[in-house]
C-alpha cells in the first residue's frame, strides 16, 4: 500500500483499498493475509528452481461482512495456491496468514485443525471426483455431521443432512442411496455445498465450482452462493477464470497474474472499467454472449501465449505483453497504487510519475514475437496447469 490503512478514519470506505477492508470496531478479521508469499521448490534435489506461486498478497475478510470474494486469473496465476493457503493446506513461505487474530500455523495445530475445518470448508472443481464413485454420497454428509459433533449418531445425522440439503434446494429423499454417477454435475455440486455447510462454517472456499457443470445447471450453484451470503451469512471465496459469473455473483474481486494480485477492488469497478492493462486484456478476451459485437471480438489480433518465461522476469510480469510498458516496469515490481477503492499494481497509476490518465484500449493488438514460445527455460504453466500445485 502506498498509504497506511491502519486506524479508523471518519469514513470506513475511505480506508478500504483493494483487498484490505475494515470490520466492526474492535472486530478481529476472520482472515488476514499480510504480505504473503508462497514459493515452491521444483525439480530434484540437485537441480532446483523456485516458483513463486503467490507473491506479496495482503487482504482481510470479516465475519461481520459476509461477502462473495472472487479470485480470478488464468492457469498458473496462483489462484489455486491461494485457495490452499486459505484452507490451511499450505503455510506461507513468508508473511503471515492470521485466522481470527492468530497465526494459522498455530490455529491448525493438533486438535485445532478440526475446529479450523469447521469454520472453513471447501467445494472442489470436479463434481464427479468430489465423492468416491464407490460410496453413496449421503455417507459424506453423515460423516461430516458426526465427526464435527453436529449430530451424535447417524440417526441424528440424517436430520442434519436433510436440513443442509434443503438449504441448497435438495432433500435427503432425492439423494439417499445414490452413488455419484446417479446424480448430475449440478446436483453433486449442490450436495458438495450442503456437506460443507453442515459444520456451520464462516467461509466456503470454492475452487472453480462451476467450470465442469453444464450451463443449464450452472446458475443454480452461483445463485446458491448468493443465498448463502444473504441468508446464512457465510462468505464464499469464489475462485474462477470465468469473469462473467464472477461479475454476476461477487462483491470484491482480485485479478491475479503470476502470483501477484494486479488489480483488486469492488467488482463493479474492476470488471466494468478495468485499470491494469492485464485486466483490460482479460476482460477484452471474454466472449460476450451477444452476437452484435462478434466482428470486434474476432478481428483484433490477440497475443500469442507468451507467458512461458514470465515467472522468471524481474519487474511487472505483464511487461513483455503490455502496450504501455515503460522502462521502470522491467526494473522493479510495481507496488499497489490506490485508485479510488481499488489497488492497482501498475506504474501508470503512480502519482509520482504524473502520467496522463488515458483509457487503455486495444491491449490485444500488440503482436509479440512468438519464437519466445519455444524457449523452455521455466516450467510453462500453459503446458502443465497443475504446476502451481506442486508442493
Amino acid at each position, binding site marked *: 500500500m502506498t498509504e497506511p490503512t491502519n486506524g479508523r478514519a471518519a469514513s470506513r470506505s475511505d480506508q478500504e483499498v483493494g483487498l484490505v477492508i475494515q470490520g466492526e470496531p474492535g472486530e478481529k478479521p476472520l482472515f488476514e493475509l499480510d504480505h504473503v508469499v508462497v514459493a515452491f521448490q521444483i525439480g530434484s534435489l*540437485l537441480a532446483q528452481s523456485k516458483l513463486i506461486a503467490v507473491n506479496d498478497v495482503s487482504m482481510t475478510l470479516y465475519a461481520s461482512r459476509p461477502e462473495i470474494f472472487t479470485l480470478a486469473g488464468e492457469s498458473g496465476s496462483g489462484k489455486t495456491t491461494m485457495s490452499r493457503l486459505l484452507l490451511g493446506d499450505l503455510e506461507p513461505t513468508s508473511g503471515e496468514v492470521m485466522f481470527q487474530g492468530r497465526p494459522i500455523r498455530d490455529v491448525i495445530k493438533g486438535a485445532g485443525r478440526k475446529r479450523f475445518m469447521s469454520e472453513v470448508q471447501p467445494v472442489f472443481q470436479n463434481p464427479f471426483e468430489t465423492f468416491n464413485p464407490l460410496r453413496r454420497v449421503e455417507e459424506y454428509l453423515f460423516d461430516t455431521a458426526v465427526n464435527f459433533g453436529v449430530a451424535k449418531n447417524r440417526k441424528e445425522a440424517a436430520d442434519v443432512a436433510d436440513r443442509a440439503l434443503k438449504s441448497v434446494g435438495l432433500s435427503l429423499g432425492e439423494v439417499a442411496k445414490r452413488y455419484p454417477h446417479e446424480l448430475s454435475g449440478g446436483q453433486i455440486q449442490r450436495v458438495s455445498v450442503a456437506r460443507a455447510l453442515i459444520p456451520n462454517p464462516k467461509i466456503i472456499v470454492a475452487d472453480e465450482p462451476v467450470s465442469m457443470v453444464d450451463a443449464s445447471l450452472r446458475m443454480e450453484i452461483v445463485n446458491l452462493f448468493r443465498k448463502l451470503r444473504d441468508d446464512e451469512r457465510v462468505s464464499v471465496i469464489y475462485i474462477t477464470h470465468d469473469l462473467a459469473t464472477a461479475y454476476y455473483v461477487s462483491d470484491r474481486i482480485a485479478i491475479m497474474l503470476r502470483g501477484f494480485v494486479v488489480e483488486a477492488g469492488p467488482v463493479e469497478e474492476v470488471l466494468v472499467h478495468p485499470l491494469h492493462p492485464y485486466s483490460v486484456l482479460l476482460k477484452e478476451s471474454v466472449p460476450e454472449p451477444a452476437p452484435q459485437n462478434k466482428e470486434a471480438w474476432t478481428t483484433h489480433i490477440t497475443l500469442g501465449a507468451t507467458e512461458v518465461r514470465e515467472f522468471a522476469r524481474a519487474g511487472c510480469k505483464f511487461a513483455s505483453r503490455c502496450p504501455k510498458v515503460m522502462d521502470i516496469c522491467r526494473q522493479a515490481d510495481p507496488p499497489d497504487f490506490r485508485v479510488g477503492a481499488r489497488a492497482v499494481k501498475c506504474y501508470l497509476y503512480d502519482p509520482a510519475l504524473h502520467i496522463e490518465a488515458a483509457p487503455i484500449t486495444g491491449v490485444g493488438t500488440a503482436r509479440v514475437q512468438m519464437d519466445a514460445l519455444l524457449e523452455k527455460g521455466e516450467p510453462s504453466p500453459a503446458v502443465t496447469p497443475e504446476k502451481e500445485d506442486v508442493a
Partner: protein
Amino acid sequence: MKKFLLRYLIPRIVQYLTVIFVGVTVTFIIPRLTPSNPVEAQIAQITSSGSVDPEAIEHLRKALTELYGLSGSPWDQYLAFWSRLVRGDLGPSLSSFPTPVSELVGRAMPWTLMIMLTATILSWIIGNVLGVMASYFPKNKAIAVVDVLSQAVRPIPYYVVALVLLVVFSFSFRIFPSTGAYPIGMLPNWGSLEFIGQYFYHAALPLLTIVLIGFGGWFVGMKSLTSNIISEDYVVYAETAGIDRKKIMSQYVGRNAMLPQITGLAMSLGTVFSGALIMEVVFGYPGVGLLALQAVYRNDYSLIMGIAIYSIIGVATAVFVLDLIYPLFDPRVRYE
C-alpha cells in the same frame, strides 16, 4: 545437457549403487542370520569322511573362518567383505580348490549372458511386435493362436516348461542335443566353424525355451498397453487423418507403447536371469546355473556366495545400461 545430467543421470546412478549396496548387504547378512555355521558344516563334512587330526581341524577351522570373513566384529566383517569384493577376491572355491571363485564364475558367466541376452532381446521383440499386431488385427487367426499359446505357457514354472521341451525335442524327436553347450570332447574354439555350428546347434533348444516362456509376458503386456494407447487422442487423430495403418501401428502405437516396455524390461532382468539359471540346470548348459547346481551338490559355500554376488552385480549393471539407453527412445526425457 547439464539439467539432463542432474535430473536423469544422477538418480539412475544412485539407484544403481543402491541395488548393489542392498544386494551385497543382503548376501552378507543372510549367512549371519541363519543358525547354521558354514565353517562347522564344512568341517563336519570333512570329518565324516574319515578321522582327521584334531590339530589339523583346528587349523582348518581358523583358515575357513578367515576365508569366509567370519572373524572379528560384524562391522569389521562387513568392511572386510566390501574390501575383498572391490578387489574382486571372493576366495578360492572349495570344490575346485584352489581355483578362485571369481575365475569359475567368470568362466561360466559369458555362456549364461550370451544366451540370456540373445533370448531376452528376441522374446522382447517378438512379444512386442505380436502384441501390437494382436490388438491391431483382432480378427487374425494366427495371432489368436499365438495369444492362447502364450497365455497357456506364461503361468507355468520355468522348470516345467523347459523339462517338457527337453522331453519333446531331444528325447521323443531327438532334434536337439539334450545336454551341454557343445559336444563332449570338443574344445571351445571360436575360430573353428565346426565349433560355432555346434554352439548354435546346442544353444537352439535353451534359446527356444527362454523365448517361448519370455515372449508371453511381453505379448500380454504389449497387448494391454496398445489397447489403451489405441484410444489415445493422437492415435484416433492419426486415424481420422487417414494416415496409413501400418505407419500408425509402428510410429504412433508401437513407438509409444514401447517405452513402458523398455522400463519393464529393465525391471524384469532379475527374473529373466533367474529363469536362465533354471534353463541351464535342465539342459546341462555350462553357465552360472549349472555351476550353482554343482556348488550345491558339492557343498561349495564360497562358490554359491560368489555366484549370488556376481549375479546381483551383473544384473544391476545390465539394468543401469538399459536406463542409460532409455532417453534415446523418449524425447520427453531428452529435451526436458
